[in-house]
C-alpha cells in the first residue's frame, strides 16, 4: 500500500472482480460460483493464519465442519432463521478455535501443525459418535429459509447475492485485520519473533488472537456452506478438508490477499469437472500439492506480484522515478 500506483491497480482489479461476481450467476451455474466463495473464504481464513502469522494449521476443517453442523442443526431442528443459524455456527466454531488455539500455540512450527491435526481428529471422532450429526449419513435437507426476514434464499439468485455479499463483507473484514496495527504486528512477529518481543509485543497473545480470528472466518465459511448446499457431512470435519484448504492457499499464493480465492476456483473447477474420475481426483490433487511445494511456492498470485514488481522496477529505472525507487529500497 506504499505505492500509489500499485494501490490504484489493486483497486481496478477488485472493481473488475466485483463486476465479474455480479455477472457470474447469469453465465455460470450459481452453485458452482457459490462453492468458490465458500471455499475461497475458508482459504482466506486459513491464509490469515499461515500467510500472515506463519502458523500452519492442519486442523481448520474442524472449525469449518463444526460450524456447518451447528448452523445446520439450528436451522433444521430448532427451526431458526438462517441468519441466526449462521451466527450460532460462527459462535460455536470460534469457541472451538479458542480451545484448539490455546493448546496449539504452546508449541511452534511442525509441532503446532501436528497438534492442530491431532485435535481436529478428536473433533472428527466426536462428530462421528454424536447422534445429532447423523453419523455417516450426515445432516441433510437443511432448508434455507428467509435471510434477515427479507431475502428468500430458496430463490437461487437471491441465495447467490446473499452469499456474494457475505463473502465480500468477510473479505473486507480480512483486509481490515491485515492493515490494522494488529495485522502489522502479526507480520512483524512472523518475520522475527525475537524482534517483536523486544518491541514489546507478546507473540503467544498475537498467535492466539490470530488463531481465533482465522477460526472465526473458517466457521463463517462452514456456516455458509450448510446454508448454500443444505447439508453437512463428516467429510467437512475430515483432515482431507483441512488439506484441501492448504492446497487452495498454496496454489493461489500464501500471504497474498486474493490468491486463496483463486486457488479455490482452480480446485473447485478440478473437482467438478473431473468428478467422473472418482477416487483418482485425489491423486491429481496430491500431484498439484507436490508440484506447488517443490517448484511453485509463491503460488499464482505470488508469481504475478513478483512479475508486476519486476516490470515496475524496470520502468522506474528507465524513468529514474525517485518516488518508486525510494519505496523499492525501503521495501527490499
Amino acid at each position, binding site marked *: 500500500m506504499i505505492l500509489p500506483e500499485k494501490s490504484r491497480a489493486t483497486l481496478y482489479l477488485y472493481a473488475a472482480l466485483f463486476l465479474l461476481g455480479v455477472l457470474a450467476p447469469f453465465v455460470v451455474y450459481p452453485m458452482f460460483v457459490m462453492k468458490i466463495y465458500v471455499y475461497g473464504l475458508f482459504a482466506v481464513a486459513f491464509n490469515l493464519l499461515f500467510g500472515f502469522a506463519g502458523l*500452519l494449521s*492442519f486442523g481448520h476443517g474442524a472449525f469449518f465442519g463444526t460450524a456447518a453442523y451447528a448452523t445446520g442443526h439450528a436451522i433444521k431442528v430448532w427451526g431458526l432463521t438462517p441468519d441466526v443459524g449462521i451466527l450460532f455456527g460462527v459462535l460455536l466454531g470460534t469457541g472451538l478455535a479458542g480451545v484448539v488455539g490455546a*493448546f496449539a500455540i*504452546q*508449541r511452534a*512450527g*511442525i*509441532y503446532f*501443525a*501436528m*497438534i492442530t*491435526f*491431532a*485435535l481436529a*481428529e*478428536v473433533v472428527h*471422532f*466426536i462428530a462421528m*459418535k454424536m447422534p445429532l450429526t447423523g453419523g455417516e449419513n450426515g445432516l441433510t435437507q437443511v432448508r434455507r429459509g428467509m435471510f434477515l426476514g427479507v431475502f428468500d434464499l430458496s430463490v437461487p439468485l437471491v441465495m447467490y447475492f446473499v452469499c456474494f455479499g457475505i463473502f465480500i463483507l468477510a473479505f473486507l473484514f480480512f483486509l481490515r485485520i491485515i492493515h490494522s496495527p494488529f495485522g502489522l504486528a502479526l507480520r512483524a512477529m512472523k518475520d522475527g519473533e525475537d524482534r517483536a518481543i523486544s518491541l514489546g509485543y507478546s507473540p503467544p497473545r498475537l498467535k492466539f488472537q490470530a488463531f481465533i480470528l482465522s477460526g472465526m472466518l473458517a466457521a463463517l465459511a462452514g456456516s455458509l456452506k450448510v446454508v448454500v448446499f443444505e447439508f453437512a457431512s463428516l467429510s467437512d470435519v475430515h*483432515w482431507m478438508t483441512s*488439506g484441501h484448504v*492448504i492446497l487452495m492457499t*498454496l496454489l493461489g499464493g500464501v500471504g497474498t490477499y486474493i490468491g486463496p480465492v483463486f486457488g479455490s476456483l482452480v480446485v473447485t473447477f478440478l473437482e467438478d469437472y473431473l468428478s467422473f474420475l*472418482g*477416487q*483418482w*481426483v*485425489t*491423486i491429481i*490433487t*496430491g*500431484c*498439484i*500439492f*507436490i508440484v*506447488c*511445494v*517443490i*517448484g511453485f*511456492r509463491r503460488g499464482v498470485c505470488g508469481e504475478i506480484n513478483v512479475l508486476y514488481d519486476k516490470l515496475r522496477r524496470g520502468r522506474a529505472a528507465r524513468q529514474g522515478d525517485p518516488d518508486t525507487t525510494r519505496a523499492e529500497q525501503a521495501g527490499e
Partner: protein
Amino acid sequence: MEIFGVPLNLLLSQVMLGLINGSFYAMLSLGLCIIFGMLDIVNFAHGAMYMMGAFFTWMLGHYLGIGYWPSLILAPLLVGVIAIVIERVLVRHLYDLHHIYGLLLTFGLVLVIVGIFRGFYSVSGKPYPIPEALTGVTNIGFMYMPTYRLWVLGASIVVCFGTWLLIERTRLGATLRAAIERPDLVATFGINVPRMITLTFAFGSALAALSGVLAAPIYPVNPLMGESIIVVVFAVVVIGGLGSIIGSIIGGFVLGTLEGLTKVYYPEASHISIFIVMMIVLLVTRSGIAGK
C-alpha cells in the same frame, strides 16, 4: 482380586492388548524420529509407508502366493526402495527450506499414495491370515494370550531395542549422529552425507513398513489404515518430543498401555485418551518431556 472394581485378570489382559498397540506406536514414532533427526522433516507419509507394508504383504500373498515370513523381509525392502526414489526425486529439493514445506510435501504424497490404493482396492478391509506357526494361544502365567500378539510384542521390542543399539552404540550410529550435528564436518572425513540421508529415509520408512507387515494379520488391511494410526503417533511424538529415540520408544509403549487401561475404565474415551494426555502435557509443559 479386584482393582477399582475391575477383576485383575481383565485389567492385565487389557494392559497386554494396550502394549500391542503401543508396539506399533513405538515403532512408528521411532521411524518418524530418526527421519526427523537426519532430514529435518516430519514425514506425513509415514502412515502411508505403514499401510504399504501391510498392503504389499497382502498382495505378495494374494497374487504370488508368498507367505508371511518372506514378506517380513520383502515388504519393507519394497517400501525402502520406494522411499529411496521419493527422497531422490522429491524430498531432496526441500533441505534448504523451512521444515514446514517437508510436512506439506509429504502430505501431498499421502494423497497420491492413498489415492492409488483407494483407486484399485477401494476402502474395504482385506483379511490376512495369521501364520500357522503363530496361531492359537499361549499361557503366560496370569492369562491366555493369542500367540501372534505375543510375537508382535516381542518382535517390536527387539526391533526398537536393536535400532536404539545401532544408533547409540555402533560406529555407524556414531557417524549418523555426527552427521546430524555437523553434516559439513562429517563430509570432510570422506563420508557421503547425501547417501546417508537417503538411506536414513529408506530405513525409517522400512521400519514403518515392517510394522505394517506385523499389523496385517490383526488389523484390517485397507488404504486408510495409515492415516488413522499416524494421527495417534503424532500425538505420541508431540508428548515425547522428536529429539530423543529412547523417548519415542518408551512414549509409544506407555501411551499404548494407557489407552488399554482407559478401555477398562471408560471404553468410550479410549480412542481419544492419548489426545487428552497430549492436551494435559501441553498445558503443563512448554517443551516435550524427553525433547529438546
